[in-house]
């Protein structure tokens, strides 16, 4: 059993490397594997165009996918555990709606009030969007964390989160109604999600933030394991429920907020990956599930990015559609298999 787990974990880690390399290799422009290798190792002699495509486009995209996938998966796992609800995910508390609201304000209002369509602002516009998304997501999160300290039941908190999501959507709807078509289009495209939006320095910043946050969220494994038992038992075992909830929701919230700010609301990964990890590893021990979710989340994000960019689609497929199209059948398959093994026992 233990050996089995270690082996699986290594395989998953290996799969990240494989998919990462495939992400660099495949794309609309054909680049031979040898050239990719040379560029990566810094060996001179490749054309500037090839170097640029790989270093400025494919590497940032793949890196973004790796950390975003991992972040969403961890956030989803934490949400499912703290709410003891298999349908919970990063988007459940309205945190991604908060990000959307922030972005909607910037995109839709700047066009209407300022008279300048944001799409024409270039880099400045991108930065404004990221900041707006982070502000929106974090303010909703602050609200949720505040509420979580006030209400007792998890279900109540969950419902309040969903309600906040609805309010955000409603406000966005109103904003859309008063906006020009061009801006609405820009907003819709943001909402489709993409790993390609982040570039240059911002990408480095994003990756750095996530590289700090992901290990930090792993510090909560004992808390999460205790929360599995339910509030009564967890409390009896010395866990401060309020504090635990605060930490877990803040952690999951910040992860979601930052990923959403940089990549748009990426659906499904956060919900599906924890189920996959549980299905594959047949455990609910977060000491295993946490690294497993990180690995599977990264791999799945890379695969989805690969499919979205497949030759022929030319970036026409939004990441959000791909995550659901690829993820949903996989989850159904895993759940079906699990059922069978349960019945046979």
């Amino acid at each position, binding site marked *: 059993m233990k050996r089995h787990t270690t082996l699986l974990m290594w395989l998953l880690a290996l799969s990240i490397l494989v998919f990462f390399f495939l992400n660099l290799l495949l794309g609309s422009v054909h680049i031979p594997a040898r050239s990719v290798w040379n560029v990566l190792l810094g060996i001179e002699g490749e054309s500037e165009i090839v170097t640029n495509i790989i270093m400025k486009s494919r590497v940032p995209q793949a890196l973004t996918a790796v950390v975003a996938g991992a972040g969403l998966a961890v956030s989803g796992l934490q949400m499912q555990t703290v709410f*003891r609800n298999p349908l919970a995910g990063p988007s459940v508390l309205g945190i991604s709606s908060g990000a959307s609201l922030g972005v909607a304000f910037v995109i839709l209002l700047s066009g209407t009030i300022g008279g300048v369509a944001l799409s024409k602002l270039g880099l400045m516009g991108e930065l404004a969007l990221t900041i707006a998304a982070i502000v929106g997501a974090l303010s909703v999160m602050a609200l949720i964390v505040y509420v979580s300290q006030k209400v007792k039941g998890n279900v109540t908190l969950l419902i309040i989160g969903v309600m906040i999501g609805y309010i955000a959507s409603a406000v966005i709807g109103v904003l859309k109604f008063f906006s020009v078509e061009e801006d609405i289009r820009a907003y819709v495209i943001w909402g489709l999600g993409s790993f390609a939006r982040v570039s240059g320095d911002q990408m480095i910043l994003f990756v750095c933030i996530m590289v700090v946050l992901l290990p930090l969220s792993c*510090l909560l*494994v*004992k808390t999460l*394991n*205790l929360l*599995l*038992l*339910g509030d*009564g*038992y967890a*409390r*009896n*075992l*010395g*866990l*401060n429920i309020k504090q635990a909830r605060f930490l877990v929701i803040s952690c999951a919230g910040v992860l979601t907020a930052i990923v959403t700010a940089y990549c748009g609301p990426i659906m499904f990964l956060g919900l599906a990956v924890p189920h996959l990890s*549980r299905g594959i590893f*047949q*455990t*609910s*021990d977060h*000491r295993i599930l946490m690294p497993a979710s990180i690995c599977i989340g990264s791999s799945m994000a890379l695969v989805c990015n690969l499919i979205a960019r497949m030759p022929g689609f030319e970036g026409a497929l939004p990441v959000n559609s791909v995550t659901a199209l690829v993820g949903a059948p996989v989850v159904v398959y895993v759940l079906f298999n699990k059922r069978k093994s*349960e019945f046979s*026992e």
Partner: protein
Amino acid sequence: MKKETIHIEDLSTGYLTKNNRKVVAEHIHASICSGELTCLLGANGVGKSTLLRTLSAFQPKLGGHIRLLGRELESYTDKQLSRIIGVVLTEKCDIRNMLVEELIGLGRSPYTGFWGKLTPEDREIVDNAIHQVKIEHLVGRMIQTLSDGERQKVMIAKALAQETPIIFLDEPTAFLDFPSKVEIMQLLHRLSRETDKTIFMSTHDLELALQIADQVWLMDKTNGITTGTPEDLSLDGSLSHFFARKGIMFDKDTGLFRIDNEFTHAIRLDGCGQKYSMVRKALQRNGILASRHVGVNYSVETGNLDKEGFILHCPDEEALHVSRIEELIAEIEKRRGQLPPAEELKK
């Protein structure tokens, strides 16, 4: 061996909201001893769970004192309490994909380090707990594949692994079938003796509690809490008073409750042993008072276990032989109108 571990003085339990103080029970005086199984009995809504939650420090008390091992409950930190009180709750936890031994291992959490990793000593304590509850055969099973009874045993093992001198159980037998109820109660009784722990549980299983518990707490709205051994409470009338209501009778000879039947007719019953009592029981259920002290023309002869069947004697009829109680009852029912009424006989 027997030592007072929990002392309760003038305790009030209930809920505090912003501008409301809702008292559920007050003026509770009692103590609980180690090495004993104490059962808390009472109707729904009388405050059993609130009392248990207050004692486990899940909710604040409204007044009075609770002393655990000689110290006020409030003076303990959460961490300290997790090493003093272990709980088993009614709620069925829907944990999936967790092994039995992993769950019991979580009982070690108050002692484990930052990552919750079990040391070899912790594993030994977990094995010990499994051994004490006798669930070796469940090791390696996933929690979701267990029956309710097995799951409760695992939770009890978890509480044992927690190594607390006190264990509180809130209706641990609530969803179990009868044999599992008996098994859990006997297990708890045995554990209280073997481990010298203080075990306090609430339950609705009156009959079992009266047979297995060392101490019984009767909780009700008017009298508060009455404590004592089931036998003492039976002698001083507290028990019959406590459950006095139509249809339930406290049988002072056995110290147990039984259903109080109303009799319409009577019949004489001759015989002895098991067959006699079974026929009597069946007739009682049908509202017919049957006894060897009744002197009427209609009579049933049961004989003892060596003889087969039953004989029904009626005046002006031949003796009727039947092989099963079911047939006997049917025959008597046919003649029910002719049987003398029970009321007259009582006079």
